[in-house]
């Protein structure tokens, strides 16, 4: 065991900020908003509450394992999966959105107050040149969380993190 209660939890948050999402390694699991809570239990274990992005996301088990590995030096770790409230892309941090754009993935728009109709997703701004003259190529992408688009101005294809 190292440190006091508050500093162990703070240290745990710092460590998780360096744990990348396995499918979008540009951002961390903290940026993604899937770490819902971090606390020290009565028995001294660090308890991490995680929420899945999509029901079928195959990265969920990998994320749990990476979180446990990252926190192992701090002592015993327990992870807990919490489904409700359901994850929304609104929980992706501003920093996370900037990192996504820098990586070439158009970040999701805000969906608080109701998700956008799928057909509206044809006007996602290009993450490279910023043009709004873009078109959707495919409603589904390489992972459940993304769709494929193309910029009509700079002609580059790009991925978009779907707002849910």
């Amino acid at each position, binding site marked *: 065991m190292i440190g006091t209660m508050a500093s162990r939890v703070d240290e745990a948050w710092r460590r998780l900020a360096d744990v990348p999402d396995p499918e979008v390694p540009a951002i961390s699991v903290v940026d993604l908003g899937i770490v819902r809570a971090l606390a020290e239990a009565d028995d001294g274990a660090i308890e991490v509450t995680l929420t899945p992005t*999509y*029901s*079928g996301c195959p990265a969920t088990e990998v994320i749990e394992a990476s979180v446990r590995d990252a926190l192992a030096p701090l002592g015993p770790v327990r992870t807990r999966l919490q489904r409700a409230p*359901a*994850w929304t892309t609104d929980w992706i941090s501003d920093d996370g959105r900037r990192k996504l754009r820098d990586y070439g993935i158009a970040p999701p728009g805000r969906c608080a107050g109701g998700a956008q109709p799928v057909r509206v997703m044809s006007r996602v701004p290009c993450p490279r040149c910023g043009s709004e003259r873009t078109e959707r190529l*495919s409603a589904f*992408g390489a992972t459940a969380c993304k769709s494929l688009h193309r910029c009509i101005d700079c002609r580059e294809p790009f991925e978009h993190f779907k707002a849910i």
Partner: protein
Amino acid sequence: MVASIALKPDAHTRYVLRLADTCLVWSHRLSEWCGHAPVLEEDIALANQALDLLGQARALLTHAGRLEGQGFDEDQLAYLRDERDYLNVTLAELPNALVAGARGDFALTVLRNFFLSAWMLALWRALERSSDAELAAIAGKAAKESRYHREHAADWVVRLGDGTDESHRRMSAALDRLWPCTSELFDADEVDAAAAATGLGPAWDALREGWLADVQAVLAEATLPLPPAPAWRGDAKRGRHSEHLGPLLAVMQVLPRSYPGGVW
């Protein structure tokens, strides 16, 4: 080979299993398209949707296992139950092809996806208020996924229905094939009565009106006339299946039954 397991599900567990098995069997049918869809984008779309449905099925089966009380996990429920213990709707188990032995029919696939995802969306939204907190949590997440599946499928129904003469003809054939199976989605029995009474979820017949309005609008845009109410009523959700579920389960279950406990 591993022996089958036998369940003693009460009404609550059966309500959850009907959903779980519909997600699992439908997911399996969609996964059969992997590597065979007409265009790459749809290959990815169908596989993505299959994955979402599989995730929903896993959560529901795990929950059903806990409710049932004999300690069965998601894998045992998926791989070791016999056909009669599967409670999915008939619509989910029909083959992707219109004619026996033929390759998958894309018109039938997108129309089934539309019918089922529009229905699931309405069901998930109602289940977000379920008295069963775990089911409500699963529904909250799944509703977001079904919404996207429904919109994508509806786009295809319109595009093919209001497309060329050939695509319209094929959508009409798919409609003739699938329409009789839709009555089972709104046929309430004692499982529904118990669910409605305890606040577990809606009796399925309560969803008919909303679903029909949704379907009517999309079929109208697709220039496909709405058929009259079906006279036939499927009974798969009570364990009496079409001839198609058995072969599907044989494919799905052969590995875990032949190599018990095998992992990779």
